[in-house]
Every structure is written in C-alpha cells, then in structure tokens.
C-alpha cells in the first residue's frame, strides 16, 4: 500500500485527473492531448512548488515515511563487504542498532546505525528503532574496536528516541547514553555522523558525537518529539504540528544554529523516491568528510571535536 502524505494530496489528486483524461482519450476517440499537456505542466510546477516549500511538519512526515531508507539500505549502496556484528557482551543483542565493518572506497571503516523496520514484524523485532542500553553498549564496543584498528567511524542516526521502558531503566539507560557521549569524545579516529531520518533526543545523540555531523535535507533532530513537546509545553499532544514549527528541528534550523556541518539534498519528494540517488548525494559529502578528517592527527581530531561541541549554544555575556 502506498502511503500518501497530507501535503502531497494535491499532487496525487492532479495525477489521478491526468490519468482519467488519458483513459478517456484512449477509450473514446476524443483528442485531449492539449488538455493533458496543460495539466502535466501544472503538475510539474505544483510539484516544484510543494516540494521546495516543505513546512517543518511536512518534513517530519517525510522523515517518518514508512518507506524511508534505513541504515541497512544506505550500507548496501555506500559500502562493500559489510560484515555485521552482534551483541554487547553484557546482556544481549539490540536489533534497534546495527554495527559492523566494511570497505568505503577501498578503505576499511566501522559503520553503526539505528535500524527501524519497514514492516510491522521487523519493526517489533527492532523495537521501532528505539534502542535499549544494550544497543548503545554494542555501539561503543565497536567504536572502540574501530579505534584499536585505526578505522574511521560512520554512524547513521535514525530513531524516535531511547526506549521508554522499565527494562531500559533497570539496565542503566542513562549511564549507557552518557558513557557513549563521553567515550565518543575521546576516540582518536575520525567520526562522521549522518542523521538520515528522525534524530530523537538522547537516543540519537548517543551515536552523534562526531567530528562532522550532517543531516539529510528532510531529516529532523530534536530534544524531544513534536508530540512530546506539545504535551509538555501545552498539555496537548495534538498540537504537534505547532510544536514541530516552534522547536526548530529541521536540517535548515540546525545549520543555522551551527550544530551541523552540511545539509545533504534529497530527491524531489524525499529519499524514498530514489534511494540510489540519495546514496550518491550522501557519498559526495561523506567522502569529503573522511578525506578531510583522515589528514588530522589523533590530537587534532580530539581538539576538533571539542571545538565543535564547545561552541554550541546561544548565550548572553559569553
């Protein structure tokens, strides 16, 4: 079943009308070419208009699109010889995070990413991409291994947030996230992070302390989901559209705040329309990041990460 997003409805309606005319024209002998051409022109300009003026809430919908490419999709297009590793060595294997090694343009790298499912069954297995502590611990285990073998680290961020549950709290969710933030800060290999879907709260940040942080154009990065923000700020989760606007969560907002380095453009309508093209767009930015960072010494990489995060914030009197 094809998922139609709210802001796309005018486009879908127009497309339906064009198809209708085409069918009539085929079935009867009436020539409607001129009318069809006019409508197709209108469709093109409508698409341009809608897709180049996406509102924050529209982007949230694109970022959450059922068919939006996941970490494993991009791994397939960007890397070769991917080998996945499992388990945190303490408790279990969290399938909400995938981790492994691969080649990137002939260079060995470690790749780690949040992993959603596209269908219900997989989503349940992967807990909708919301990690438990085991996920963060698996991630940092592999990052430390990357440091040991001097491999750059690439992370894909795509989660609604940390799992809100009893088990996660019992097993030290806070400590697991905090530990990742601290340990990532001290790794002596390049770290490049790309937000590919939703970057939700601490669960996202736990893979996010990189030298370079990029975002796909329609991805979001925020302290809390728009629904959560609405329920805290106005005690009404239905105001999520308003919250999406006021919380400033789009790639353009984060670029303005100097939190991210690059906005990676998406194909018209979103990454799910053309995964291959999306991967190409990512490859361009990623390659440049890896090349630039690979020239830095261990000390320079640490200093670079400190400088990046030290300067984030808006302060009076600093």
């Amino acid at each position, binding site marked *: 079943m094809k998922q139609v997003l709210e802001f796309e409805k005018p486009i879908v309606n127009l497309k339906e009308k064009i198809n209708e005319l085409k069918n009539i024209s085929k079935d009867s002998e009436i020539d409607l070419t001129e009318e069809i051409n006019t409508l197709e022109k209108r469709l093109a300009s409508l698409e341009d208009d809608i897709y180049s003026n996406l509102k924050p809430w529209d982007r949230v919908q694109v970022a959450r699109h059922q068919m939006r490419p996941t970490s494993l999709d991009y791994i397939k297009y960007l890397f070769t010889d991917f080998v996945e590793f499992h388990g945190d060595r303490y408790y279990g294997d969290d399938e909400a995070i995938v981790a492994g090694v691969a080649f990137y343009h002939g260079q060995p790298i470690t790749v780690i990413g949040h992993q959603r499912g596209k269908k219900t069954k997989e989503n349940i297995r992967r807990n909708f991409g919301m990690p438990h502590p085991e996920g963060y611990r698996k991630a940092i285990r592999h990052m430390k291994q990357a440091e040991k073998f001097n491999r750059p680290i690439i992370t894909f961020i795509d989660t609604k947030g940390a799992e809100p549950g009893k088990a996660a709290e019992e097993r030290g969710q806070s400590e697991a996230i*905090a530990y990742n933030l601290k340990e990532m800060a001290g790794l002596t290999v390049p770290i490049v992070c790309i937000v590919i879907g939703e970057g939700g709260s601490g669960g996202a940040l736990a893979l996010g302390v990189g030298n370079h942080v990029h975002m796909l154009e329609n991805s979001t990065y925020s*302290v809390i989901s728009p629904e959560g923000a609405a329920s805290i700020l106005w005690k009404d989760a239905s105001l999520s559209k308003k919250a999406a606007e006021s919380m400033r969560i789009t790639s353009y907002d984060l670029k303005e*705040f100097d939190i991210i380095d690059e906005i990676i453009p998406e194909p018209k309508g979103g990454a799910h329309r053309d995964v291959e093209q999306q991967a190409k767009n990512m490859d361009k930015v990623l390659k440049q990041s890896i090349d630039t960072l690979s020239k830095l010494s261990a000390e320079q990489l640490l200093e670079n990460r400190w400088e990046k995060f030290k300067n984030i914030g808006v302060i009076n009197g600093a």
Partner: protein
Amino acid sequence: MLKRIFTRNKNNTTIPDEKAKQDVPAGLMTKCSNCSQIYYRKEVEKNLHVCPNCDFHHQQSAWERINSLFDEGTFEEWDKHLKSENPLHFPEYMEKLEQDRKKTGLNEAVVTGKGLIGGQPTAFSVMDAGFRMGSMGSVVGEKIARAIENARELSIPFIIFTASGGARMQEGVLSLMQMAKTSVAIERFSDAGGLMISVMTHPTTGGVTASFASLGDYNFAEPGALIGFAGRRVIEQTTREKLPSDFQTAEFLFKHGQLDQIVHRHEMKELLTTLLKIHNHNQSNTMSSSESELISIKGGQSV
C-alpha cells in the same frame, strides 16, 4: 445523602479572621510534605532540610548546599554573569526566566565555582531545582563545561550536585547538545587524570541523568531522590507496564548496581572530604605534608 457529609460546604467553613492570621508570622512554620509533621522553619533549615521526623531529604537551594559543604568563606563563584537568550523565540520564555531570577536570586539554574571542602580544594557545580526546574539550556551547559575546564587547568577535582528536570524545552535541540558539550569536557578532564564526583539529588531526570550526572568516577545519590531518564508517566502510557513503587528512586538504582552509595545529607561533607584526601594523597608526587603525616601515623601504629 451520605455524600453531603463529605462535601465541603463553603458557607460553613470557618475562615480565620485577619487578626488571627497575623498572630503567626508568615513562614515561621513549615510542614513536611512526606510525613505532614509541622516544624519551625529554622529548625528544618538547621537540619539541612532533612525532616527531623521521617528523615525525608527536602530540596536545598544551590547556596544552602554550598554553605553546608564548603569551609566558611572559601567559595568563589564563576561565570555568574552568563544569562540565557531566547534562540527559539519562545513566547513568555524571557518573562519566566526573569520571574525565576527574582524568586531564587540566581541568574541561571546552576552555580559554579571553587572552594575548600574540609581544607581540600575542589571545583564545584550545583544545580538549583527552583530555577526553571533545574532544566539545562545553553547557559547551564556552558557553565558546567567551563567549570570542568577550569578544574582541568587548575588540576583540582570536580564535584557536581545535580537536580534537574532534564533538557530545557524552550531551547530545543540546543539544550540536547549541552549533553554532548559537558560530556566532551568530562572526557578531556578525565583524560588528564581529573577526579569527578557526581551526587544526584531530588530530582535528577532526562538529559542531565544521561550525561554528566552519570559520568562521575564515583556516583552517589541522596536517599529517596527521583533519578531516571524517561518519565514514569511516559513509560506507563507508552508501554502500559506496571511499575514498582520504588521505580527510579535512588534505592532502585542502587539495587540495580548504578550507584556507588546512597549518602545521607548529614554525612555528605565528611565523605567528600575523605575522598578528596585519598585522591589528593595520590596526586602529590613530591613528599607533601600529607605524606609525612601518614608516615608518622604509620610509625606510631607499628610500635
């Protein structure tokens, strides 16, 4: 019929007249929110806001905490001038900040500085839950990161007392990033051999728990403190799980191996002093006075 007995009838309620109200000066008495005992406010303050009856640890303000821990007159505040902006242009945010400045006498939800605890120098940060629920925005993150950097440069330990509702919503993703900023600062400090002690007080939740509060070389908490990442209500609503009554308390965390100790407020200064002493002893490379003291003690004991 029966219902009427339990319904409050406004007409019959006895309201004390103005004169009677004036007999007891406002703020003289205070009631423990846990056991409902009534005490003289002064008595409770003297007891460091620990209820003399049920031992409940009520919140202390940042300065009450500083005064109860630091040797008199030794605390020197840092970065007091830093103030929050309104980067997301949130309606009423600036007004709320101003209200809390008036209410608490603080510029922001954290006080940082250095001083002596039991004669030992240390850098210090203490959050104040009375200011925007102790939430962390750009300024809170910045002040804490600076305090850690100062500790690194001065080669002194860093102690933090947390009390926070988590990241500050009104500063959005900038608040989230303060978790990273403070954690990177801690990594630098830790890498330089710095000692960090974290004491979680009621309440410590959200992004603060998932960053510096959990990153001490020693992590402590006060009895009964609420400590957790996701809120209890959020968990109940999303997962429909039944949560134990002690869920996300200091005792719950201790039981699950996440704390070094739960420390009574009356014993806090002594514990910190001891730990700073143990740490400072190892830090001094030369024959310091503390080492010669130890030798003399050892000599005395060996006889």
